[in-house]
């Protein structure tokens, strides 16, 4: 099984700055972490590889600093990592991101399985997985919580829905997004760290991917963020004043008024 895991670097802090020109996150100069949901995707990819053989390739679209995160991926079991990085990719919405990732996956040759986290911590859209599946013309299952079986080109898995779990059989190749219930990601190993230190991580630019520049980055984005703001906090609670007895009485009145008692 050749597996591609898509991972992303996200701000490791809530103190993020917004570029006033583009209304997108300023990603330079802040502490970054690997998107937590992606760590489950990577762990599952490595576990499938350990069970069925094959290779795990991690890819990420991002600024050059994302290389460090890709090295961490190698330390926990990925065989190779590729960084998609080009100023032309900057400011991409989910559509342009999915397009870029899909082209990279095609360039790698058709893998048997593509795994992503359910969503990222910064954008929170959960759209890149399904969009990529659509562009690659592959079946897609979201919110996978367990892989039950892999056999002869099919995969049986559990998908988390609000009321419980669906059991789905999907032909491979396919695209999955996974939830955190699927596994507990491992810590790096010393041998993995040694491997990651010496690993060569190729950087693929727009030219190397052979993509249409109008389809990537800000110019390839179908959406524009026109404003980012923090919602105003509304305090709806009420603090009752006065003596204990009068407070109890007025609380009972209010509960009656609201027809709670």
């Amino acid at each position, binding site marked *: 099984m050749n597996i591609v895991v898509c991972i992303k670097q996200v701000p490791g802090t809530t103190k993020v700055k917004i570029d006033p020109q583009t209304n997108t996150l300023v990603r330079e100069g802040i502490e970054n972490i690997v998107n937590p949901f992606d760590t489950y995707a990577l762990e599952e990819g490595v576990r499938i590889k350990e069970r069925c053989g094959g290779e795990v390739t991690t890819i990420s679209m991002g600024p050059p600093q994302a290389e460090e995160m890709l090295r961490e991926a190698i330390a926990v079991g990925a065989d190779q990592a590729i960084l998609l990085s080009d100023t032309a990719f900057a400011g991409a919405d989910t559509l342009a991101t999915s397009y870029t990732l899909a082209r990279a996956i095609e360039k790698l040759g058709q893998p048997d399985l593509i795994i992503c986290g359910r969503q990222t911590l910064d954008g929170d859209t959960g759209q890149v997985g399904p969009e990529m599946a659509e562009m690659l013309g592959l079946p897609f299952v979201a919110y996978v919580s367990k892989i039950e079986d892999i056999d002869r080109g099919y995969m049986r898995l559990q998908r988390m829905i609000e009321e419980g779990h669906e059991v789905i059989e999907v032909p491979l190749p396919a695209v999955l997004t996974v939830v955190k219930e699927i596994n507990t990601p491992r810590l790096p190993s010393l041998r993995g*760290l040694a491997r990651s230190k010496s690993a060569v991580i190729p950087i693929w630019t727009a030219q190397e991917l052979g993509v249409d520049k109008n389809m990537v980055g800000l110019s390839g984005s179908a959406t524009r963020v026109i404003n980012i703001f923090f919602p105003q906090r509304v305090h709806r609670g009420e603090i009752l004043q006065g003596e204990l007895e009068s407070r109890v009485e007025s609380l009972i009145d209010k509960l009656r008024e609201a027809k709670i008692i």
Partner: protein
Amino acid sequence: MEYFLTEQQKTIKRLARRIAEERILPVRAELDEKEEFPWVVMKDLADSDMFRVFIPEDYGGLGGGCLELCLVVEELSRVCSGVAVSYAASALGTFPLLEYGTEEQKRKYLPDIASGKRLAAFALTEATAGSDASAIKTAAERAPGGYMLNGTKQFITNGGEAEIYTVIALTAKERGARGASAFLVEKGTPGFSFGRKEKKMGIRASSTRELIFRDCLVPEENIIGREGVGFIMTMRLLDRSRPGVGAQAVGLAQGALEAAVDYARTRVQFGHPIISIQAVQHMLANMATEVEAARLLVYAAAKTIDSGAKNFTEEAAMAKVFASDTAMRVTTDAVQIFGGVGYMRDYPVEKMMRDAKITQIYEGSNQVLRDAIAFELRKRKARRE
């Protein structure tokens, strides 16, 4: 402080700390309370290659020495000494094999120890033989196909949990210490069973148990080295492992110091955090200074051993004595700084204080080791060095 560690050593230390904080910290109170062997953590340590650290590369290890082992033990002990000693005991049980084992024995056992698939243990102590290790009674009599072991070992760390035991037994009773030999005994060997599991003051996550040998036939090829060298082998092995106990003590003291500083910064009395009180400041300053001194002595002893020095009894003993006395003092002072809550099990320092005591006792009591240090001093003077 700059410790002049190599990149590899820094990586080992960092990863050990991460395992300790992410995987041990959330369960340490429960492990202590339930006296439960930390198999889950052992698996994490194995997956992260921590058992490979002290094994040569030819046998699936990473080829580290005493210092690398100390770095791991220190970081694990900073969070839980019970877990740290379970890890370290596997190294202790492996040392005789590393130094005196045949190529065949190494090929058979070391790869599984390196991968963490099997734990090792070392068995010397008996009811009548503690500090006086030469008073052991467990006998290994020649029998067809090997040696027949009879006797009971006491207080064996990793007892019951380990699969590979290095056992010291007498092949020639009449020769006393010169009649001792070392044997590899696998769990499951007929005639080998486990006795009582001790209920301990500290390091409660670790397993301390009796090993019982009743007509236990150990195959001839399982002797380590040759007959009669068991005792001298043990003395050398303990010299090599003592900085590890020192590292355990340094980790404990470091953990207690950090907890005390955190608490002193947040605990408000008389309108100020207690860290603004000079009496508390001086206690913390002394603790920090002593921990640093202990660490440097442990690292220096470990480096001396790794440099290939022939005799390092004195250095190893000094590191163990100083670091364990430091751990006892520092953890006691940490409880003092916490005051009443420090005495309660809701806070981690009472556990650290309980855990610290054993470091002054095992692998050579600090009194016996002071004897050893003094003996080296006298020897040098006699030789006019």
